[in-house]
């Protein structure tokens, strides 16, 4: 099982702030999860935007970051704090 989280404008577009996703043995990197979500079609294709950021277990990662069962994966737009 993966814990997925979505923030800010991306969360609003998906109308979803978190979900649990069953683990699949096809999941090697964060990009695999992203692709799985995009396949759901609108509004999930919002995740296809190259600016979407990915954090794995609360550390910034990217499409190539390796993932394992039990990870928390967060997707969000570029940050705008400070």
């Amino acid at each position, binding site marked *: 099982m993966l814990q997925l*989280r979505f*923030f800010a404008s991306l969360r609003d577009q998906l109308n979803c702030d978190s979900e649990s996703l069953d683990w699949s043995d096809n999941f090697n990197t964060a990009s695999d999860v992203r692709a799985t979500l995009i396949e759901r079609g609108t509004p999930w294709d919002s995740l296809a935007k190259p600016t979407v950021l990915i*954090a794995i277990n609360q*550390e*910034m990662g990217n499409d190539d970051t390796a993932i394992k069962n039990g990870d928390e994966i967060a997707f969000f*737009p570029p940050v*705008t*704090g400070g």
Partner: protein
Amino acid sequence: MNISISIQTDDFSHSDEYQNLCNDAPRIGAIVTFCGLVREFDDSNGEGLFLEHFAGMTEKTLENICQQAFERWPIISTRIVHRIGTMGLGEQIVFVGINSAHRKAAFHACEFIMDFLKTDAPFWKKALTKDTEYWVEAKSSDEAASKAWKK
């Protein structure tokens, strides 16, 4: 290594934050502070901001940025206060303060922390105007500022 980070909805006292930095190391030399305020936007239609963050990751990220500052410069303490939730125009959003024996170290560490806070810490601003609200877009100048430190 004296790192202090607060994420809070309440406003903070700039004066108390400054005084705490002095007390961390009395007789030490140089204190640099940055404070960011909610500024006018949207041709004065703006009424304020709402700030969302990724609790947990925010603290981890800021701690990591501060640790990097300690690796780079001879500083005594770093203090970050960042507000979340709703803020009106002119209100304080963020405070970063540095205490060091060396003024250049204090300046550079403070600027470094702000630059990486802007690009790496998971905060998002929503602009609140008289008529509507919308998420604020990231600025490419912020991205460029934090990249510049990696050269």
